[in-house]
């Protein structure tokens, strides 16, 4: 089980959380102006990165806040978590905060 550091509550067990998938996917402001291809891209296509990946988490059985996390998907190690609205930190693997 992973330990997830909630920006509000600190390190907590993974079962208190729900993972919300890839972060920083902005909903198009005017969907009707998008082509089918662009809409499919927004709806279905995901980075699915092997390595550093930004994703959304919700502390569902805790403070119930959404936040973002940078995690290395090859090792499952969390690099950093940050609040919604903050910019994705510029970090590469090897700089993990232990």
């Amino acid at each position: 089980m992973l330990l997830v550091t909630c920006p509000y509550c600190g390190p907590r067990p993974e079962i208190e959380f729900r993972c919300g998938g890839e972060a920083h996917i902005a909903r198009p402001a005017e969907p009707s102006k998008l082509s089918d291809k662009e809409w499919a891209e927004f709806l279905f296509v995901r980075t699915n990165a092997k390595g550093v990946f930004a994703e959304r988490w919700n502390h569902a059985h805790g403070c119930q806040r959404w936040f973002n996390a940078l995690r290395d998907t090859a090792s499952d190690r969390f690099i950093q978590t940050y609040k919604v609205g903050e910019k994705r930190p510029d970090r590469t693997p090897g700089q993990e905060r232990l």
Partner: protein
Amino acid sequence: MRRFSLLTLLKEATNAHQGWGRQWRAPEPKVGYDAVIVGGGGHGLATAYYLAKEHGMRNIAVLEKGWIGGGNTGRNTTIIRSNYLYDESAAIYEHALKLWEGLSQELNYNVMYSARGVMMLAHNVHDVQSFKRHVYANRLNGVDNEWLTPEEAKEFCPPLNISKRLRYPVMGAALQRRGGTARHDAVAWGYARGADAMGVDIIQNCEVTGIRRGLSGAVEGVETTRGFIRTPRIGVVAAGHTSVIMEKAGVRMPLESFPLQALVSEPVKPVFPCVVMSNAVHAYISQSDKGELVIGAGTDQYVSYSQQGGIHIATHTLDAICELFPQFTRMRMLRNWGGIVDVTPDRSPIIGKTPVQGLFVNCGWGTGGFKATPGSGHVFAHTIAKGEPHPIAAPFTMDRFRTGRLIDEAAAAAVAH
């Protein structure tokens, strides 16, 4: 290829089994091939086998970054069934099941396909209605599936607890008698041996590090850890790593890769005659010929390539199994592992062409790829050889996510995803 038979077995028995030899070569990669398959799992090897056998393409190679059958082929719970709801799915899984039935003879290799029956338990009114709908839909598609009462289910699988006092009582079950299990490694090995015999190069420890494209955009070859290999056709069959490989050709995929876990118990005498699946409480269980209970757990909630998963996922499944089969509470679990499954938004696979000329992809089998191995390889070989999808594979294009013509097995509710 030396054919296996009772005669060869007797001959080897008198020779202390010293003469079996290697069943496939370990060739150096050639400068170029007519087609290259990326991924030496069951699906990739089956693709190569049918390309060579049915389409006469023998100057081809299978590139595997580890060892063949070492990914999801060697990590799954070996369940075979074809009772999917939608016509398109039923067609492809039934195509595979028909190939499974004759596969040992076809390959002259015992893949230990055992039609012991796959029973899916219904625990609530919704399950009952949904499973009955599946039974009727399957019959219309010529796929065997039948409805059992709890008592009939108990008769088919005696260890089952059908007490009405359970948290999730058994209200009935859907049974596909032709469903069952096969030996996962043997499937990879059998296809590898058959393909190798027809001249296919199976190159292990050879990781694809890049896909080279020409000025026209068409593929020219693959960069690998063992050098550049020229080829006009690339078939990507890389399961959990599909997004990673496709990204090298500049193609973004509608996929997410999740860890899926399985575990086995200590071996015991035969106690469990069939495969039992319960989607409501999330448990899969069967007994291998070695005697181990083979148990499939769920996927973790996050994208990962780590080939492991959270222990709470496995314990959740064990909780459910102990409730359904109280006699297993005192068994010890031996091994627990994970594989990386590539999941599409509609939980159906993607088989076909890509926007890049010469690049083909077969992926998105999610948690249920093993059962499709022969059918998947068969239709994908056709797609690569002809440059056009096999009729059975035609609905499973990547383009369906643009057109909206989804094959929404995720919403069909009786497949465990």
